């Protein structure tokens, strides 16, 4: 599929949901136009022959990097919870978890 196919507002609505961004209708329109414009620019790579080219995920090739299974001192709970938006009973408090898989 070529990069230049336009992105639709329906696509943007789906993406906003995936990204958990509450975009209002005006923002959806604006984003759709901007992303479509960008994707037009990005269509330049459609011209390249990428057959048989290996994707490059990491610039410096390393393998087998490990740590040993030894307990190290962690963070202080009070310090961490002091930065929490809401805490109770030594734990992070959140509103009811609805509309999500459980």
């Amino acid at each position: 599929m070529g990069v230049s196919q336009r992105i639709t507002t329906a696509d943007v609505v789906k993406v906003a949901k995936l990204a958990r961004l509450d975009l209002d209708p005006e923002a959806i329109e604006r984003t759709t136009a901007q992303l479509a414009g960008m994707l037009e620019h990005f269509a330049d790579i459609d011209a390249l022959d990428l057959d048989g080219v290996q994707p490059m995920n990491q610039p410096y090739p390393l393998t087998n990097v490990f740590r040993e299974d030894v307990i190290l001192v962690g963070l202080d709970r009070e310090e961490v919870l002091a930065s929490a938006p809401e805490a109770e009973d030594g734990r992070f408090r959140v509103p009811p978890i609805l509309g999500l898989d459980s």
Partner: protein
Amino acid sequence: MQIAAGVRAGTLKAADVLEEHLARIDARESDVHAFNLVMTDQARAAAAAVDAAVAAGNDPGPLAGVPVALKDNMCTHGIPTTCSSKMLQGWKPPYDATAVTRLAAAGAVAVGKTNLDEFAMGSSTENSAFGPTRNPHDLSRVPGGSSGGSAAAVAAGFASVSLGSDTGGSIRQPAALCGVVGVKPTYGYVSRYGLVAFASSLDQIGPFTHTVEDSALLLDVIGGHDILDSTSIPALQPSLRDAIKQDVTGLRVGRITDLPEGADPDVAERLEAAFDALRAAGATIVDVQVPAFSYGLTAYYLIAPAEASSNLARYDGVRYGLRVNAADTNAMYGATRVAGFGEEVQRRIMLGTYALSAGYYDAYYGKALKVRRLIADDFDRAYQHADVLLTPTSPTVAFPFGSKSDNPFAMYLCDVYTIPTNLAGHPAMSVPFGTGAEGLPVGVQILAGTLGEPQMFRAAAALERAMGVSK
């Protein structure tokens, strides 16, 4: 590093050096706005500790008493680290980034956290949620970005050196626009532990300094393997301060003949002058091609936002940072993130999420990873004929505020020359080389292959000598 030498020898007091810098901050910071936070009290305590150590006959380290500014996307324990975003306004990390720890262990004195484009996304520092930083050379113009504050802090003399981060040019471009040295090392050279991630396979921490030698010293201090970063290069690297002592006789400097056009004439003229200077110093200029170079922008603007969309998903209002309350968690996510993130960040998250989404992965992210391979391969071929390459850093000198705000793509073009090195994981640095239009600084970019820092610094030192900058 004169400051460190003086402090270690006892001929300079760290406290005095600090006060000098604080005075300059006092005088001009309200105009420049390089900092999100000036750490006056902490800095004074740190400087006093350095002086006490020297008085007790101990060596505080190779950066003794050197005032350093830290880009505000590096975690500093107990000190707000905001990434210039409302999402992290006031957030105090419970730990230090490795680079921060190493600076402190070397005796450096942190003077403040510098302003940046929000979450390091931008090329002008106009995307900061706390107001832009102004170019010390001309307050009506941008300092570049995303590490605009760190570049300006050094340019304005607020700090002797500073740290920035570079994902697509965010150290080199502001360095060029502010007339200072800025280095992005080989990917994996400096630990990313504690650097708030933007694009994990592209980010690197690097120095802003006035001199090439100072940058070499900074990298010798902060660089090197870190067990807390799985991508950090394990092998010990040679000292760069030693490398710059070598002149450029016989060094092969490549001119990329198929480089994308678009550099302003004043910038192009400075680049020619740089080639001339290196030739005069004994280097050989060779022509090379990097055919895939111009596809770097596209590959970058698919890969970086994709990784960023995942890295920034953790900002959900649950454990730290901003929370906008709502009836349920899902609603809280949506409201929090749209309130906490600025427009550019939201745009990149959207682009990145789209590029990774089901049905689109192969067309966008997957394809971009292959383009990345082509670019890296093209560079490898070029480096068979050249030791370093020379290009402009930024296509233009510093531009006026708002002049590129209408079209995000116009802003993205600022990084056309810097982006490909991040994709390949190669080192590159910007060295000030005279002035262009309106007397504004121009920087030239030296590129090298993986772990090619020694050659890169050799060339940089030669250009510096040609400009008559004394060590």
